[in-house]
């Protein structure tokens, strides 16, 4: 059983098999370059989007109905419209209407950043209102103002509720970068397709190896996120339970 598995593995890994395509020419560097594009776009979108989302989420627990309605509209806009359409809108339509040209990667960071902010605002709002009202009352009794209540009472007690959803979103953003070819940004999946098509005749089985490698790259990027999430949650729980 084991022997036959090793046997078939060596057949698959023979020198003329599709895996060699990963190391032909500059393919490995190109794939890693594509991964860097995906990761940097997603990373910048999260760096700008999360703080903005936290602010918007905090604003959404205020009692001003106009503010709440506007922020709700913003959230629904980015949640309902597919990311594909948002990218198309930001890259092709808005510059046409407004007469400004911005490169694709910047557009991607802005569009993804606004999407992240919208999703995070709802995560933060949900977590903040889950803090028991008597905690807030206790803070008020100590003479805290609104900002102090947020910073010293609400945020510390709800941050562990925000972590899982935020990490989920981060992984989703990284994987959604595969749509970027639509706005002519070359991400890791597009590089993979270029490699497969250029070697279609010499290596018809290259799809398996290229996609397999791209899967591995995504995994290497997203796995640490899961680890970070676990560590953060554990720390928050320990702190809350004293």
């Amino acid at each position, binding site marked *: 059983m084991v022997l036959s598995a090793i046997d078939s593995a060596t057949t698959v890994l023979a020198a003329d098999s599709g895996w060699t395509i990963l190391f032909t020419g500059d393919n490995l560097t190109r794939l890693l370059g594509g991964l860097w594009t995906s990761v940097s776009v997603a990373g910048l979108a999260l760096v700008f989007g999360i703080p903005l989302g936290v602010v918007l989420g905090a604003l959404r627990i205020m009692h001003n109905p106009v503010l709440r309605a506007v922020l709700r509209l913003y959230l629904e806009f980015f949640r309902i419209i597919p990311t594909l359409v948002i990218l198309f809108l930001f890259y092709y339509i808005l510059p046409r209407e407004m007469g400004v040209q911005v490169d694709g990667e910047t557009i991607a960071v802005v569009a993804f950043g606004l999407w992240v902010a919208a999703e995070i605002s709802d995560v933060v709002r949900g977590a903040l209102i889950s803090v028991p009202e008597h905690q807030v009352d206790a803070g008020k009794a100590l003479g805290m103002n609104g900002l102090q209540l947020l910073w010293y009472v609400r945020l510390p007690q709800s941050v562990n509720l925000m972590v899982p959803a935020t990490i989920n979103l981060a992984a989703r953003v990284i994987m959604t970068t595969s749509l970027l070819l*639509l706005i*002519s940004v070359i991400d890791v999946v597009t590089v993979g397709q270029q490699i497969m098509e250029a070697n279609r005749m010499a290596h018809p089985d290259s799809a398996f190896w290229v996609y397999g490698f791209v899967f591995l790259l995504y995994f290497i990027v997203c796995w640490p996120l899961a680890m970070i999430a676990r560590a953060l949650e554990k720390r928050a729980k320990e702190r809350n339970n004293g």
Partner: protein
Amino acid sequence: MNTLKKVIAGVLAGVTMISLAACGGSSSSDGAASSQQGQTVEQIKKAGTIRIATFGDLPPYGYVKNDGTRAGYDVALGNQVAKDLGVKVDWVQVNADGRVDALKSDKVDLVLANFTVTDERKQVVDFASPYMKVSIGVVSPDKAKITSADQLKGKTLAVTKGTTAETFFTQNYPDVNLQKFDSKTQQFQAFKDGRADALADDNTYLYAWAKDNKGYTVGIKTLGEESTISPAVKKGNKSLLDWTNKEIKTLTEQGFFEKAYQSELAPSFTSDIKPEDVIIK
């Protein structure tokens, strides 16, 4: 893809309404049809780069080699255009459905991406003179070669749904038994398995397929109306359109396309295909 287009159209309608409401009458000022649109040849020369949209996944027309450089028949033309303008090329990779919008939104100056001229597309972009031609071809096994459409009567022909080949045979040869498939992979597989006597598709795809699959020949090279493949510029970019037309004419006279055919396309096609089957003289 159609649902996506509907969603986009809906969103666009909404955005247009909002922007119309917001801008009031200001948008009417750019409506003059005769004015120059997009970058002129002078502006491109001054900028030092021409932005060209191309495919990255369609060998031998536009693809990326293992060393990361772009190659193919479309790319060869783009490089020559840039050389004659005295500028560098900034390649912008697009999907088939991004080609029109890339021009409309001034993301690129020129499209060289196997862009077939159709009446619908003529409404939204300006096509220059053609540099390649394409029409329906029929491939069959060497043992039972089919060289004319009349030979197909009562026989089974594999086609892909939604292609020009399907429409052509449905309208003009109702006696042919069409076997319709959803994808190119499926139609070629069925044909190789012997489930059809012949297969019809764009001749430019068939030439390359017959090269990879021994024992098959493109017996009918052209059927029905011939389509052409042209460079496209933004609608109203008269400066670049005139320049490109002149360029195509000069390059044709210099035999550039024949050379490009030999270096880019011939290695991927079967040996019985001649340059004049694909290029325009």
